[in-house]
C-alpha cells in the first residue's frame, strides 16, 4: 500500500509542475495587479456591506418559498467569497443541500473545505467585511413563511440569530466572554428574545437550562466566571445558551474538537439526548467521521468549497461513491484493524483563489478518466437521497441523472 502511494504521487509528478504556474501567479502579484484587486474588492465589499446594513427593508424582499416544506433550511447554490488582498477566495462556491425538519445533518470535509463558512453564512456571521455572501440563497423555514437569509439585512437577521438558529462553537475555552458571569451570559440571551421577560423569569429559565445540560450545581455555576469552569463544563454552558430560546435549528460547529475523548462522548450524548427533547434540527459540522456515523441522519461531504457527495448516513458509510469520500473513509483509524500506515489522500487541496475549471479533486484522484478533463462534474442522483458529483457514475452523455 505504501508503495502504491509513492507510485501514484511520482506518476503525478508532471502534473504539479503544470498546475504550479497559476498558483505561483496567485502569490506573486505585481503592484498594479494588487492595486486592481484592492480596488475591485473595496468596490464589491462596499456595495454588499451597504446592502446588509440597510434598515427598514420590506419583508417582501427576502420572503421566499421553500422547495419542500418539510425542510428547515435549504442551501441553494450558496456562494460565500472572501475578498482578500491576493484575490477572491471562493470559500463556498455553489453549495446546495437541505436540512430536513427534526433531522441531524452532518457536514464533513477537511480543514478549509468551507463547512464552517457554510454554517456561518447561515447565521450571517462570516468575517466581514472581507467575507461576503455573493450569490445563491439560504431558505429558512420560519414555520408559516420562509425567509431567504442570504438577502436579509443584518437588522432583521438579529431576530433570527439565537432565537431561531443557535450556534455552538468549536472553542468552548474562548467562546464565553471572560468578564461576565455565566448567569449574565445566559440571562442575556433569554431576556433578548423573550418579550416582557423579567429578570427572575430569565434566571429561572437559565437555571433550568443548566440543569438540562447536566450541570450538577446550576446555582453555583450560574454565579461562576467562565475561567472557573472546565472545558467540558463550558461547552455544556454553550449548549445551554444555544438551547435557551428553543431554536428550530442548532448549528454545532465542531462541538467536540477541543475536548478530550471522554468529554466528547458526554457532549455528544448530551446533544443527542437534547435533540430528542426539543423539536429541532441539528447541523453538525465535524471532520470526525466517527461522530457523524453516530449522530447524523444525513451526511454532506464537502471538498474545496463544494458539496461532492450527500446522502443518508447509511449510504455514505456503506456505499461511498466519490473517490474523496472513499479516501476519507480509508484514512479513518479503525479499532481492531491492523494497518502498516494509515492511508492518506495524496496531494493538496487546490488554491482557493485560483480554482481550476475541471473537477477540483482531479489532481489527487487515483481513478480519474479522460472525461475528468472536462468541466466540473454535475450531480448524479444515485438514489432519491444519494447524489454524487463525479464522472465515474455519469451516463454516456456526461451528465447522468438530473441535476439536484
Amino acid at each position, binding site marked *: 500500500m505504501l508503495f502504491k502511494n509513492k507510485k501514484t504521487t511520482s506518476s503525478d509528478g508532471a502534473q504539479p509542475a503544470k498546475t504550479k504556474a497559476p498558483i505561483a501567479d496567485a502569490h506573486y502579484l505585481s503592484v498594479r495587479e494588487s492595486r486592481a484587486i484592492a480596488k475591485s474588492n473595496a468596490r464589491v465589499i462596499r456595495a454588499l456591506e451597504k446592502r446588509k446594513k440597510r434598515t427598514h427593508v420590506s419583508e417582501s424582499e427576502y420572503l421566499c418559498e421553500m422547495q419542500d416544506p418539510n425542510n428547515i433550511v435549504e442551501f441553494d447554490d450558496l456562494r460565500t467569497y472572501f475578498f482578500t488582498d491576493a484575490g477572491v477566495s471562493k470559500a463556498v462556491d455553489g453549495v446546495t443541500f437541505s436540512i430536513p425538519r427534526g433531522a441531524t445533518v452532518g457536514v464533513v470535509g477537511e480543514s478549509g473545505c468551507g463547512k464552517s463558512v457554510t454554517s456561518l453564512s447561515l447565521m450571517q*456571521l462570516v468575517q466581514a467585511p472581507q467575507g461576503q455572501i455573493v450569490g445563491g440563497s439560504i431558505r429558512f423555514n420560519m414555520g408559516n413563511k420562509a425567509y431567504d437569509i442570504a438577502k436579509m439585512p443584518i437588522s432583521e437577521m438579529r431576530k433570527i440569530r*439565537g432565537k431561531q438558529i*443557535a450556534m455552538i*462553537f468549536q472553542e468552548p475555552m474562548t467562546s464565553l466572554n471572560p468578564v*461576565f458571569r455565566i448567569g449574565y451570559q445566559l440571562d442575556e440571551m433569554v431576556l433578548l428574545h423573550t418579550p416582557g421577560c423579567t429578570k427572575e423569569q430569565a434566571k429561572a429559565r437559565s437555571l433550568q437550562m443548566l440543569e438540562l445540560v447536566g450541570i450538577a450545581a446550576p446555582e453555583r455555576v450560574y454565579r461562576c466566571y467562565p475561567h472557573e469552569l472546565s472545558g467540558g463544563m463550558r461547552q455544556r454552558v454553550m449548549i445551554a445558551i444555544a438551547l435557551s430560546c428553543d431554536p428550530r435549528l442548532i448549528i454545532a460547529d465542531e462541538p467536540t474538537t477541543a475536548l478530550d475523548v471522554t468529554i466528547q462522548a458526554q457532549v455528544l450524548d448530551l446533544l443527542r439526548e437534547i435533540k430528542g427533547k426539543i423539536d429541532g434540527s441539528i447541523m453538525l459540522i465535524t471532520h470526525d467521521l466517527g461522530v457523524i456515523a453516530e449522530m447524523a441522519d444525513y451526511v454532506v461531504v464537502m471538498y474545496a468549497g463544494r458539496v461532492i457527495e450527500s446522502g443518508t448516513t447509511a449510504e455514505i458509510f456503506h456505499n461511498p461513491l466519490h473517490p474523496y469520500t472513499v479516501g476519507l473513509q480509508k484514512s479513518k483509524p479503525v479499532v481492531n484493524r491492523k494497518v502498516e500506515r494509515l492511508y492518506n489522500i495524496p496531494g493538496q487541496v487546490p488554491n482557493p483563489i485560483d480554482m481550476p475549471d475541471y473537477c477540483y479533486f482531479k489532481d489527487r484522484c487515483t481513478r480519474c478518466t479522460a472525461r475528468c478533463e472536462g468541466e466540473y462534474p454535475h450531480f448524479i442522483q444515485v438514489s432519491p437521497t444519494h447524489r454524487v458529483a463525479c464522472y465515474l457514475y455519469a451516463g454516456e452523455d456526461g451528465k447522468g441523472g438530473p441535476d439536484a
Partner: protein
Amino acid sequence: MAKYIIKRILISILILFGVSIILYTLLRCMPGDYVTQKFTANPSFENSEEKLELMKELYGLNDSIFVGYFKWLFGNPTLQTRGAILFDFGTSFLYDRPVTEVIADKMWISFALTLLSLVIYYPLAVFLGTRAAVKQYGAFDYATTVLTMIGISFPTFFFSAIVVKIFAYDLGWFDTGLGQVSGGMYNPTAWELFIDQAWHLVLPIFVVVVLSLGSIMRYTRTNMLEVLNADYIRTARAKGLSERSVIYKHAFKNTMIPMVTMLAGLLPGLFGGSMILEDFFKVDGIGRIAYTAMNAGDIPFVMGYNMFLALLTVLGMLLTDLMYVAVDPRVKLTR
C-alpha cells in the same frame, strides 16, 4: 490580598533604597557642583580657594559619595536633619527651604494641569480609539490615525511654540506673557483671579492633550481590534445582540481591562509635573522648579524630587496590579 499588598510594599521599600543609591551617586558625579557654579560666577565674591573649600564643607559637598549618602539617608548632625529615612530631605540649596515644603507647595499647580488634561484626553482617546477600531480601514480610522500620529511626533517645545504663536501672538486670545496670571490686574476679585488663572492653563492643557492623545488612542484601537476578533464576540453576535451592545458591552469591558490598569500607571505623571512644558509656559509647577534645581546642582532638592517620583512610580505599579484584580475576574492575587 492584604498579605500580598504588605509584601509588595516591603519590596517597594527595597527598590526605593536601590533607587536612592543610584540617584545620589549619579548626582554627585555631575560636573560643576552648586558651590562652584554659584560663587565662581559671582564677580563680588572673592575667589579664594579657602573660601570655596569652606562653602563646600558647609554644603556637605566635600564628603565622599559614601559618607554623603549616609548623611542624606540617616541625617546630618551638624545640619540637624533627621535624614531621608524619616522623610526629612534636608534644605534645598537653591530655594533655601525644606525640600518637602517646596514640593508640597509647587505640586498642586502641576497636579491641576495634568489632571485636567488627563480628564480630557483619556476619555477622548478611548472614544476615538474605539470608533477607529470599529471602522477599521475606514475614513475615520485613517483620519484619527494620521492626526494623532502628528500629535505624537511633535516635540513638546516645538508644538508649544506653534500654539503660542497662533493663539497668543496672532489671534491674541491669550496672554503673550504666559505664566499663571496676567500682569497689571488692578485689585482683582477672587473670581476674576480664578478665571484669569484658569484661562492661562488652557494653552498648556491643550498642548498636553494633543501630545498625549495619540498613544492612548492607538493603544485602545489595538486592544479593541484584538477583542473584536475574539471568539466570544462572535458568540455575542450569534446570540442576536445588536452591534451596539456587542461593541459597547461585550467588547468594551474587555478592552478596558488594560486601559484602566494603564490609568493607574499614570499616577506619578500626575504629581511629577512636566519639565519642558512648565518651563515653556512659565507655570510655576514642580517640573519647572526641579528643572532649575537640576541645572543648579541642588542635590537635596533633586534627590527629594526624584525620590518622590520613585515613590509614586512604585505606588502606581502596585495600584496597577490592584486594578487588575478589580476589573479582571480572572486575576487573583495570592501569596
